[in-house]
């Protein structure tokens, strides 16, 4: 009787040993000995703990109304990865955040996605810029990109043409984030992108739009500079064809840790601006009725020989990304004005203005802080709740 029970025709999956094996964590660093290089830079860099693609821009609909749009994909490499053969094994986690700013609506329409890589449902290509979650994607195609987003409140299908070469946001494509050279990222931008396509707002019919956008692609492994809680960043397409990127890192009390910028003149000459060449002064602030956060939404700025003020398309451009990265920030369309004339337009990002650190999410986790939730996770202000990794190391 026992004979026909021997051996397994279809073996059940083997069970792992008692101590669950882990995959080694690759040592990666941003350093000038390995400068950023194209076309490699376009693809994803999965060995780095953190990477994102950020498209922001101004659109005009068929009625001539101005709109702001944003689409961000984040990739996080988990700090610990187990040698689990499961297709669900959380090696890389992807987040996507999309927003449309329409002054007639008065606040952002937003949508979010989060997924683990695997089964083809979310991922990023290594050779070109292609990153996706389900049907949301940013895809490099020939001399441009396509962007598609489909959600209840908003949807876009946009074609983006590249008309200017990539702009490395620092020497060798390395953007220094603080006094310590470890705090740095690989970072390039594509300013003056031409956008054509269609959008859907809520359940209104699709409408044609066109405009100008800016793409950031950045990856890193280093820390947010010590003491910093957030940053202010802006990227502006200047009307003369130039491009300007500025960022500054703030402490909790608002004082400055670091600031820097890049100005590509209309003639293509790139000027890296040290902190001493920049002043950014808030002109007024706006308090969010939802989160209670107070954001400086208008600024007076001097960068090198440029002098202008920044004004938002509308005050309320707060993005509450509770369902994906768990952060609350202000990310909105702004116009650069000088003596009553617009000299450029782009986006402004303000992070770390929320309530101070929340120790322990959901209350119950606080009792075992070290194993599961590392300190970075608990800072609700941080865009990227990633331990041991730069916070969005200001573009």
């Amino acid at each position, binding site marked *: *009787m*026992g*004979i*026909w*029970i*021997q*051996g*397994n*025709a*279809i073996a*059940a*999956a*083997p*069970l*792992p040993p*008692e101590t*669950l094996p882990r995959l080694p964590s690759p040592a990666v660093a941003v350093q000038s000995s390995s400068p950023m290089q194209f076309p490699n830079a376009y693809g994803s860099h999965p060995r780095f703990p953190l990477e994102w693609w950020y498209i922001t821009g101004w659109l005009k609909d068929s009625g001539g109304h101005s709109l702001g749009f944003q689409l961000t994909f984040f990739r996080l490499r*988990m700090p*610990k990865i*187990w040698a*689990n*053969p*499961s*297709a*669900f*094994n*959380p090696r890389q*986690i992807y987040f996507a955040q999309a927003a449309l700013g329409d002054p007639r609506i008065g606040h952002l329409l937003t949508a979010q*996605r*989060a*997924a*683990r890589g695997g*089964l*083809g*449902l979310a991922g990023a290509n290594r050779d070109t810029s292609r990153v996706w979650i*389900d*049907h949301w994607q940013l895809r490099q195609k020939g001399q441009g990109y396509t962007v598609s987003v489909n959600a*209840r409140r908003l949807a876009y299908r946009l074609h983006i043409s590249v008309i200017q070469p990539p702009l490395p946001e620092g020497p060798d494509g390395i953007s220094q984030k603080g006094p310590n050279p470890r705090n740095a990222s690989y970072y390039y931008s594509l300013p003056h992108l031409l956008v054509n396509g269609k959008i859907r707002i809520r*359940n209104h019919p699709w409408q044609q739009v066109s405009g100008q956008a800016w793409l950031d692609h950045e990856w890193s492994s280093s820390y947010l500079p010590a003491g910093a809680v957030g940053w202010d960043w802006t990227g502006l397409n200047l009307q003369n064809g130039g491009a300007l990127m500025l960022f500054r890192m703030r402490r909790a009390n608002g004082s400055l840790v670091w600031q820097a910028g890049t100005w590509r003149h209309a003639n293509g000459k790139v000027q890296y601006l040290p902190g001493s060449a920049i002043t950014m002064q808030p002109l007024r602030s706006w308090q969010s009725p939802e989160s209670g956060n107070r954001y400086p939404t208008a600024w007076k700025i001097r960068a090198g020989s440029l002098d202008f003020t920044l004004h938002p398309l509308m005050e309320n451009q707060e993005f509450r*990304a*509770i*369902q*994906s*990265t*768990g952060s609350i920030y202000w990310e909105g369309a702004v116009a650069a004005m000088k003596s009553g004339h617009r000299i450029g337009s782009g986006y402004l990002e303000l992070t770390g203005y929320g309530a101070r650190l929340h120790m322990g*999410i*959901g209350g*119950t*986790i606080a*009792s*075992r802080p070290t*194993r*599961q*939730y590392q300190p970075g*996770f608990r800072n609700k202000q941080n865009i990227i*709740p990633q331990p041991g990794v730069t916070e969005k190391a200001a573009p």
Partner: protein
Amino acid sequence: MVWRPLLAHPAASFLAILGVALGVALGLAIALINVQAVQDVSSGLRRLAGEADLVLSRPGTHLGDRWYARLALARGVAVAAPQLLVDGILPGGRVLPVWGIDTLQSAALGQPMALPAPGHPFGLFDPLNLVLDRSALRLLHLHPGDTLVLQAAGVPRRFTIIAAMPDPVPGKALAVLDIAAAQWLWGKEGKISQVALRLENGVTPERFRSRWLAHLPPGATLRTPREEGSVSARASLAYRANLLVLSLVALFTGSFLVYTTLSFTAIRQRRSLAILRVLGLRKREIFLAVLAQGLFLGVPGVLAGVPLGILAARAALAKMGANLGAGYFPDTGTALSPHPWLWSIFALAGVGAALSGTAWPAWESRKLPIVHLLGPGSEEEGKEGHPLPGFLLLALSGGMAELPPIHGIAYGAYFSITALLLAVLFLLPLGVRLSGRLAPRMEFPLFRLLADQLQGSPGRASRSLAAIVVAFSLIVAMAVMVGSFRDSVADWLRDILHADIYLQAGSGGQRLFPPEAAARLCSLPGVRRCSLLRRSVLQLLPHRPPVVLLARSINPQQPDKTLQMQDTASPDPTGPPPVWISEILAGISHWKPGQTIVLPIGPKGHKVRIAGIYRDYAYQQGAVTLPFSVYRRWTGHRRANGIALWLRPGVPVTRFLERVRQQFPHSTGWQIATPGEIRQQSLKIFDRSFAATYALEAVAIIIGLLGVSNGFGAQVLLRRQEFALLRCLGLRRRDIRHLLLGEAIVLSILGVLAGLAVGLAIALLLIDRVNPQSFHWQMQIHMPWAELLLLALALTSASTLTILWSARSILAHDAELLHDDS
């Protein structure tokens, strides 16, 4: 005028109120438990599904994870969340359900198990972290931060509890971990249990389903969470209907009690009513006044009965769970939520029962001529009812019994039982008179008095008897039905348990023996023969819960060596492989022996031929038995859940088991039993599942006895003048007591005999109609004669004693009898 007559006899009125209260309480308690059970199951399923519109699952087996990928990207899907359900074995062998989830997707669907850290799900990405719900923490006396050792696929793993979450299903302990960890630690790489889907705006579940249903693997279902709940509710529908009918019967008995009380009150007050008529009150007003007396008994009964019912339901739920021991619902303590509409229904039913008990006496009191009422002796008796309606009801009852069931509920049989009980009401006077006539004519004066009394006023006597007849018939019916059922189960167990030792891999139902264990067990010295059993579930019928698939060592030529066959098809060696289906499955599916069906096993399913139908009481949802060799060929599964061993003659079982324990150090979780132990255990479970029935019977007996005592007390009261007259004629007080004793014995026997007859008829309806139609199982009729005799004797003496007791207290003051003019 309304309550004075009732207040004059507070004990009788109190008993009537108590009867209504008990009836209402019992009915309400049963109904509340039923509703709560179904509500818990279906709302639990809905809550677990979050905002999902549809759930893809394949009951009893797994889906490949590519199905998740396909559906997640399918047109019309907004969010898709996969889940893998596995069993974690706690130290001590108990099973903790473990849900492997993808927190990111579950959170997007608003599913409750994704709650612990919205937006920050990374804690769960460590495969040895898990989240327990509050019930599990309470059950295990653990706190977040503690560690918990769980056996995953037989390997103990040390998990850290990183958080607590509210119970997704109230009262149900469960653990949540990452789906990747569940696949890895449980050896289920590439497998998932279900996918919850939220559809895009404007896509209806129906449309999506119609597009996908044809492309799904066999046995897969795509249901809305509501449908999942209703499928589980439908499975237990017949059981719940049965219990509800039983509980209504208690109320019915209560209404008889009101009838008994009020008909005597009405007769007693006929003269005063007649005087009122003379004074100018109209017939209609008198009718209403008597009805109001019914309300006077019904309303307090309801006011006491409703809270009593709620308390009883709460206590039963806390103690037994919504299950009531029947196995249809998860065995966990549940809290009772308020159901005001159900309360009102039973309050109305209670008042209705009281009013219907009043209607007949009220009608009688209004139709009699005044002159007749005013005359002397008018309390005694009017014209008693004609038996014709009784015969008509009997015929109706017979006709109703032949009706087919509707949606699996034996409405015809239930109506037939009701008609039968009503018929008794009309036929009882005839029976009493016949018994008086049949009594041998003896010259002994007391005897003649007795016979004359029975012949002369059969209506009055039968009124006192109605409640006891109804109560006893129900007891008999249940005793015969339960006895037959139990006997059939015992017989079936004897028939199928041939082996010497039965081993189960664990209590978890789906647990398997280690790969080599079966082979080693079967080759132990002393083993003559061994047989393997692999149990799993299969989604075989649409809109029904999955059925049990039993793969076992069985000889296709001689299936009756393993199963209790009821019907077989002629063998067809060239046809597809044979399977045998249980009688229950045959009843649900209407499949016939010889028919070819498709079992949803593997990617395409397999054709099989139904070789026969066998008796099975174990799986209420139905079962299919398949030769193990065929199952192994189709699935590649070689491991078993159960092993039966036959020992060589002369090998002692205890010695053999010692050897098993020595050679299999991991056998502590195994369940090892001899056929005797299995029989005993099964019958214990059987008895527990009839716990609710026994409670109902007890209440019916109490109400019946209350009715008898009420009826006779009133009767003796009415006949005080008669007794006084007899005393004057020279009868001693002792003689009158003997007369009453004789009457009591005769009437009690008559009541019990009538109850026996009606009860047997009802038992036949239950065995032959209600059970096959509701549950699709047959049983042989088995008369528990000894039990019935005992019951009959007990009830006869109880009712005799009740009669004597109520008579004695009234006759105590017989000096005043002649003057009494009440």
